[in-house]
C-alpha cells in the first residue's frame, strides 16, 4: 500500500480499503458509544446483552473483512506482501504481548489491562509496521 492512500496514483483496491476502514472504524466508534450508553442507561440482561455486545464485535469483524477484500483485489503482489507482513507482525506482537501480560498477571497479581487493549494495539502495530515497511520500500535511488 502506498504512503498516501488519498493520492491520485493509488490503486482502486487501496481506495476501497481506505474507504472501508474509515467506514468500519467510524461504525465501531459509534457502536461502542451507542452500546455503552444503552447498557449503562438500561442495564439489559440475557439475550439483549449478548446481542448488544455483538454489535461492536461485528464492526471489528468487518474491519478485518476489509483487509481480506483488499488482499483479494490488490493486483500489485509486492503491496500484498507488505500488508501480509504487517498483519503477521501485528498478530505475533499481540500474541507475545498478551501472553506476557497474562503471565505477569498470574504471577504478580497485577490488574487486567483495560478492555479492548488488544484490538487497539493490534491496529497500532499493524499501522506502524506498514509505515516502516513503506519507508524501507521507498528507499533506493531512481536513476
Amino acid at each position, binding site marked *: 500500500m502506498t504512503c498516501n492512500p488519498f493520492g491520485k496514483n493509488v490503486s482502486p483496491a487501496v481506495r476501497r480499503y481506505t474507504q472501508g476502514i474509515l467506514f468500519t472504524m467510524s461504525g465501531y466508534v459509534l457502536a461502542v458509544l451507542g452500546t455503552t450508553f444503552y447498557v449503562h442507561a438500561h442495564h439489559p440482561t440475557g439475550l439483549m446483552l449478548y446481542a448488544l455486545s455483538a454489535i461492536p464485535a461485528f464492526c471489528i469483524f468487518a474491519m478485518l473483512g476489509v483487509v481480506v477484500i483488499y488482499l483479494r483485489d490488490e*493486483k*500489485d*503482489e*509486492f503491496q500484498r*506482501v507488505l500488508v501480509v507482513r504487517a498483519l503477521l507482525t501485528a498478530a505475533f506482537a499481540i500474541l507475545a504481548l498478551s501472553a506476557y501480560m497474562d503471565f505477569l498477571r498470574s504471577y504478580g497479581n497485577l490488574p487486567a489491562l483495560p478492555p479492548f487493549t488488544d484490538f487497539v494495539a493490534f491496529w497500532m502495530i499493524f499501522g506502524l509496521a506498514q509505515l516502516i515497511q513503506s519507508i524501507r*520500500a521507498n528507499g*533506493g535511488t*531512481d536513476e
Partner: protein
Amino acid sequence: MNNRLKVLRAERNWSQADLASKLEVSRQSVNAIETGKYDPSLPLAFRIARLFDLPIEQIFADN
C-alpha cells in the same frame, strides 16, 4: 536472486515510475525488485521479460 532490471531500465532511459506504470505495479515494487529485496512471482517475471523482449534468464539469475 540477482537481476539486470536497473541496467535494462537505464538503457531505455526509463525511470522506476515509468517501468512501474508499464508493468502496472507500484514504484515501490520496482525498487524492491531492483534492489533484491523482493523476488517477483513467475507471472510478474514473465511480464517483465515480455516488456524487455528478453528471455527470463537474461534478466534474472539464480545466486
